[in-house]
């Protein structure tokens, strides 16, 4: 499946319009820091960022037309194959634009309250989104690496934006130091792959004949194994898979809350997209050994994440471990690649994105009223904000994987893939883990419904941005659970990649 021949620059540009628009808006936002004053400025900038994201989303249309048109192009190489337009990429790029839009919407009040630099905040979210889209929209390791760095560096800065809070500083420093080492490890893996195959293009790599390269025989396998371990290590750090998860709890706790929500779905989803590109395509020869590694990593990631989450009282820390556990479930999809796990990973990433952003929007709702740090701050939320408490229940059910939510279909999809791939025991481990996770998710539900609110607390007012985010997240969680057919259809047409 070599990509189509190169097309003129303008035609290519049409298909990466969303990235171009977002980069331009992000740059303009930096200048926007000088416009207006006080609250108005922050709101103006948020509106600008949101507008840019909406336009970027609409600008996905030419690519959609091209891929679904009569000619039925599968994969179009753009700009000398540095980027590609395909169904897989379009799926993730649309998801990442939606994620960034929700992050911008739910952050507005927090940015005002905590006096964060609004222009830089929204600009960095957009730049990170561009990096994520480049990672998903490329089959070229160099572009994937640059996208990864654009996302990572924006993330390091976002984590440390609360400069007077030592925890935020700690979050940024830890994320930065460990993250740059992970990037270097990833790059080293790429250099080994390049040395072996003589190309950084994943499709070209896929077509390399091992017997015709400088390294042959068993040595090829050894070096490929080493290279894939390095790449898995580098990207495993970004998705916080055990044993590369050490940074996650501290960073998630210390970073500004909207940023934590963004980390848990954005850069993580992009790293999963990159893994999906690299492993099935580039390292196809190693798939048997890779399944073993992925299985082990998946099992320890979900088990350790769930068991540690049980012990937490800080909500952000608990969600950090919960997000490690969810990454473990997604990794099962990689181990079960032979049974169609790739599609499961795609569905899981988008389902989890909306659910987790919803959870963080609820935490932000509490934080606008000076709460939201501990599980006790959920006490009596059902009386203080009934609608939001109900939405939170939907999200938590989604995280557990209860039917009629997107979380159920996501788990079901990966579960089925594991059984198909002959890894039924892995599916059982996953089910047991989901049962364990009920333990800590239930604490929040109990506190919301069965515990009386603190004395003298009335109804909590909700800001428009949060209301919209929570509504969208709830609707998407239910829609993907009840009517997932169009999404699954799109995924199965693109999982061939």
């Amino acid at each position, binding site marked *: 499946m070599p990509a189509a021949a190169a097309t003129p620059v303008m035609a290519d540009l049409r298909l990466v319009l969303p990235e171009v628009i977002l980069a331009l808006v992000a740059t303009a936002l930096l200048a926007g820091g000088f416009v207006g004053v006080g609250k108005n400025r922050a709101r103006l900038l948020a509106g600008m960022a949101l507008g840019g994201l909406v336009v970027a989303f609409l600008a996905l249309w030419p690519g959609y037309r091209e891929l679904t048109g009569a000619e039925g192009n599968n994969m179009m190489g753009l700009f000398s194959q540095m980027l590609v337009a395909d169904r897989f990429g379009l799926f993730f790029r649309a998801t990442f634009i939606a994620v960034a839009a929700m992050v911008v919407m739910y952050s507005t009040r927090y940015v005002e309250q905590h006096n964060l630099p609004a222009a830089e905040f929204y600009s960095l979210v957009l730049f990170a989104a561009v990096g994520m889209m480049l990672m998903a929209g490329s089959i070229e390791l160099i572009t994937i690496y*640059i996208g990864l760095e654009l996302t990572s560096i924006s993330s390091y800065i976002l984590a440390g934006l609360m400069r007077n809070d030592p925890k935020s500083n700690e979050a940024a420093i830890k994320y930065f130091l460990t993250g740059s080492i992970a990037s270097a490890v990833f790059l080293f893996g790429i250099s080994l792959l390049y040395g072996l195959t003589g190309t950084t293009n994943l499709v070209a790599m896929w077509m390399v004949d091992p017997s015709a390269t400088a390294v042959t025989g068993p040595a090829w396998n050894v070096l490929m194994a080493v290279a894939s371990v390095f790449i898995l290590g580098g990207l495993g750090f970004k998705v916080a898979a055990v044993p590369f998860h050490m940074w996650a709890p501290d960073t998630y706790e210390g970073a500004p809350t909207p940023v934590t929500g963004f980390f848990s779905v954005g850069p993580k989803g992009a790293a999963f997209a990159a893994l999906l590109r690299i492993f099935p395509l580039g390292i196809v020869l190693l798939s048997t050994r890779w399944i073993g590694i992925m299985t082990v990593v998946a099992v320890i990631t979900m088990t350790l994440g769930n068991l540690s989450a049980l012990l937490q009282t800080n909500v952000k820390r608990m969600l950090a471990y919960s997000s490690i556990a969810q990454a473990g479930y997604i990794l099962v999809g990689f181990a079960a690649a032979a049974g169609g796990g790739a599609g499961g990973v795609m569905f899981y990433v988008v389902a989890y994105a909306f659910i987790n952003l919803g959870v963080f929007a609820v935490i932000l709702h509490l934080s606008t009223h000076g709460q939201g740090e501990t599980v006790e701050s959920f006490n009596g939320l059902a009386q203080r904000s009934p609608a939001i408490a109900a939405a939170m229940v939907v999200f938590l059910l989604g995280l557990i994987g209860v039917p009629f939510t997107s979380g159920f279909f996501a788990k079901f999809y990966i579960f089925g893939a594991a059984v198909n791939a002959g890894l039924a025991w892995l599916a059982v481990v996953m089910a047991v883990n989901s049962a364990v996770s009920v333990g800590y998710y239930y604490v929040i539900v109990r506190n919301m419904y069965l515990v009386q609110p603190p004395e003298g607390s009335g109804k909590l007012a909700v800001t428009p941005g949060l209301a919209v985010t929570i509504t969208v997240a709830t609707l998407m969680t239910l829609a993907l659970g009840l009517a997932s057919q169009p999404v699954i259809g799109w995924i199965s047409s693109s999982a061939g990649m």
Partner: protein
Amino acid sequence: MSVQMGFFIALAAITLWSGYMVVAARLITHAAFYMALSFVSVAGIFILLNAEFLAAAQVLIYAGAVATIIIFAIMLSNVREIRSDADCPPGIIQRLSLNLRSERLGILPVVVGVIFGLAMAYVYLKAGWTTNAQPAFTNTTASIGQELFTTYAVPFEVASLLLLVAMVGAIILTIKEGK
């Protein structure tokens, strides 16, 4: 042993030694200078590989710009010593035993480093890369420039966004408040 091999061994030894000294130096400025030295000796290895453009870039960017900026940053901060004199006992035996126990210079990092080095050496030897004939000395600068602005134009342009983000980050994280 050819002259090239001799140069390579010397440069590799300098790189490794100065790399160790970056973490082992007591004064942070010394660590910065050792890092510059390791950058320069890596540039020497690039020259041995006939990659003269990379060597020049390595010297200009790493040994020149990066090392200088690090030294500037040290001058602007209050940190001088990684370890104070008080931590350093006078006798050579005592100092050695302290070094062995310290996390930064002691046995553990050396052991980890040696294990990693041996593992990679084993992999490389087992792989038995064919020793390609030395490529003829050509003007790599022109072809690198051509590739950067044609094939690799997209990553090259995105790198500019990356630099912009890094610059914004440096400013926003260090600017003095209450202007």
